[in-house]
């Protein structure tokens, strides 16, 4: 399979309005990905599937990812004039990335047997109305996986034939895989709690009965 930027160029040639962006993958796995815009997502997907050179006819994996608001501290080398002479200064600059919800598609080709092309769809609005174009009409294997992303992340896929909850029960209203999901505090007999479980368990502890004698002092 040719390199990602060549594919990007060919897609932009084939589909004029498509706005594509390459997201680099810093890790050693070097599987960089292609960010699609909502309007042309399905046309680009159909192109990827039907293009004779690519023939990406097999969508292996569809994953939902929730990126929270994050502030990244970066050490930036800044030239500053200090007491009259130039000096290289280390300055930690805080950069705020706004949160977004994401669906990542790993595409393979069974015809040419070549490797993953990673396609991403992002939506900034993390409230209840997050919408993304569904690629199930293009690859049937995305049907259950997109339903799972709707169930656990709350992304509505437009154009999905049968968008229902797949794993949780229908009366469930939350989206549990989001990073800011707090599960109901059903405390119950926690004999071995530590760190966050300990905090939750603390409010339910019966205060130790006042024991006179040294045992109590030693245990404090």
């Amino acid at each position, binding site marked *: 399979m040719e390199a990602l930027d060549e594919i990007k160029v060919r897609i932009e040639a084939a589909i004029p309005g498509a706005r594509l962006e390459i997201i680099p993958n810093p890790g050693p796995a070097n599987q960089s990905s292609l960010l699609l815009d909502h309007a042309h997502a399905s046309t680009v997907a159909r192109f990827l599937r039907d293009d004779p050179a690519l023939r990406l006819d097999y969508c292996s994996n569809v994953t939902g990812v929730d990126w929270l608001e994050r502030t990244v501290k970066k050490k930036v080398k800044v030239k500053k004039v200090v007491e009259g002479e130039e000096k290289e200064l280390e300055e930690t600059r805080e950069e705020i990335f706004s949160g977004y919800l994401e669906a990542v598609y790993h595409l393979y080709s069974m015809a040419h047997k070549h490797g993953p092309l990673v396609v991403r769809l992002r939506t900034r609005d993390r409230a209840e109305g997050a919408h993304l174009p569904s690629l199930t009409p293009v690859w049937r294997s995305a049907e259950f996986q997109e339903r799972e992303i709707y169930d656990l992340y709350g992304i509505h896929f437009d154009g999905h034939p049968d968008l229902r909850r797949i794993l*949780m029960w229908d*009366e469930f209203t*939350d989206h549990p895989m989001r990073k800011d999901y707090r599960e109901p505090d*059903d405390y119950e007999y926690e004999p071995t709690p530590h760190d966050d*479980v300990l905090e939750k368990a603390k409010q339910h*502890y*019966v*205060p*130790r009965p006042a024991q006179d004698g040294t045992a109590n002092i030693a245990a404090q």
Partner: protein
Amino acid sequence: MASAPPIDEGLRSELQKQGIWVTSMQELYNWGRRNSIWPLQFGLACCAIEMIATAASRYDLARFGGEVFRPSPRQADLMIVAGTVTKKMAPQIVRLYNQMPDPKYVISMGACAISGGPFKQGYNVLKGIDRYIPVDVYIPGCPPRPEALLHAFMELQRKIDGQKLTGTGKAAFLDKTVPSEFPVPAFGAHDLEPPANADVFHPPKIERH
């Protein structure tokens, strides 16, 4: 046995030497029920595979009279809760328990069925089936070995053997006041309602400073 033994042991062994067997209605009744427990064919997760391995040829459950796995709860005496009980599955398990005829027992097999086990921090995992139905024998382990399930089977048989037919401490299923049916939890917006059945589930309070 708190009360006086129905038959004097010395007399009984004496008669046995002559080839005469003496027993009481209760012993006969318990002996019959103890050696023909029909488990419900009901596996949830990995422990179910170990339960099938126990019923297979090497660790033979048939030697304890328990190899007849009945798919329908109407013909089952024992429900082996083998595997993780999720909140979506809990109402179904309580409904199956309700639909079983009365002398019924529950073995909670595996860490997940006792306390949620390794998946205890999951949002969809019930922290143990004894929140909704009374459990007779608990088997720790993840999954417990087939011999551990056989040991629990023998433990359950000892428990059945100890049940009395009459008198104050008689068996639960003979006592009119003891309910043989428990309310099925409903699916709520965030969790099951009620999260636990108060009159079945009594966790001890932990004193900690």
